[in-house]
């Protein structure tokens, strides 16, 4: 159901193929639709997949889609003061704060937010970092458009916005040419935890969600389907399901 947009035959690992009619077929990525996953577990999985991709035990790029339990994460160069407002409500609520290797500043992840982690060998795709980040933003913009929400980039601040309201965030890391981390799109999450921090180091901005902008209930599972479709389109790939045993069977773990 979730991969309804991506039910095409999955191809072997080479880059481009031509079928008998001479039509160019697409390269394929694996995807894993994870249920709601604690941040630390998803991070461990990402790091293992990066290592497997780097050593070619994993022969294709792969994308993880998930939701997290509530967590604040700090980018590599985040100042801890981004996590503010005196009373430390995050600690009061018992929400953990995790420092990670991605770019960008402090942010919040939680239920109702779709988190997408493409693990992509950028060199092999001849993608520079700026282009890659803009393609991730484009994926969020087109997803929002599915609900007629006119999200856009902001020249000063990365991520996607509706005016001064932020809908989605981007932060990536590069390890030996492999990009990981990715983007977080607010689908139906409550904006409240964002008020406890200065998301991405920005003050005086509001966070919003697809459901809030569409004034309609939208679920993360609906957003997964739309993101699948646009990821495949924007990166010109077929998305092929890789369940965890299959990944384990490749000798990844």
């Amino acid at each position, binding site marked *: 159901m979730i991969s309804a947009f991506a039910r095409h035959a999955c191809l072997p690992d080479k880059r481009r193929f031509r079928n008998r009619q001479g039509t160019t077929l697409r390269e394929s990525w694996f995807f894993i639709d994870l249920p709601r996953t604690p941040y630390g577990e998803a991070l461990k999985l990402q790091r293992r997949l990066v290592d497997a991709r780097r050593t070619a035990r994993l022969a294709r790029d792969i994308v993880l889609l998930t939701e997290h339990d509530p967590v604040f994460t700090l*980018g*590599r*160069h985040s100042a801890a003061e981004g996590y503010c407002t005196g009373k430390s409500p995050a600690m009061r609520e018992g929400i953990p704060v995790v420092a990670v*290797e*991605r*770019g*960008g500043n402090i942010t919040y992840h939680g239920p109702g937010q779709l988190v997408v982690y493409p693990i992509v060998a*950028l*060199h*092999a795709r*001849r*993608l*520079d*970092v*700026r*282009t*890659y*980040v803009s393609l991730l933003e484009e994926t969020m913009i087109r997803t929002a458009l599915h609900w007629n929400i006119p999200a856009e980039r902001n020249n000063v601040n*990365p991520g996607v916005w509706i005016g001064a309201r932020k809908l989605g965030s*981007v*932060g*990536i*890391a*590069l*390890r*030996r*040419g492999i*990009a990981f981390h990715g983007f977080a799109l607010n689908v139906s999450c409550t904006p409240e935890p964002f008020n406890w921090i200065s998301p991405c180091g920005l003050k005086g901005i509001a966070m919003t969600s697809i459901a809030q902008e569409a004034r309609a209930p939208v679920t993360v599972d609906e957003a997964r389907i739309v993101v699948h479709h646009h990821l495949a389109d924007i990166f010109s790939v077929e998305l092929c399901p890789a369940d965890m045993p299959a990944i384990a069977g490749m000798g990844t773990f």
Partner: protein
Amino acid sequence: MKEISELNLPDDIHYAEDHEWARWEDETIKIGIDDYAQDQLGDIVFVDLPQPGSRFEKGEEFGTVESVKAVSELYIPLSGEIVAINKDLEDSPELVNHDPYEDGWMIEIKPDDPREYEQLMDKRTYLEMLKGLE
């Protein structure tokens, strides 16, 4: 991204597969990232370098560079002790983009084993490796 034929790759330095360069300066070796890497990363806004006196084994992460919303790890191409870092990068990280081999150098090391320099790639070998990435 630049075409491989457009890259500025000096002849008098050696290259590592993660796109760092190394150059002999009398008794020490200067290290930075090359034109391919700076072009791929885009505008660099932050460079994080180690303290002088610290030691790294070949291939270990010695620092990071941040471009817009992306942090990239840096790997030392030879084992050794850091004897100096380029402090100008603290206020002017864009030097890495504008002049990766001179003003944009990152660290200077005293190598444990000078022979490791010879094991790095010369320009011709490095160019072949880049062509193989495509």
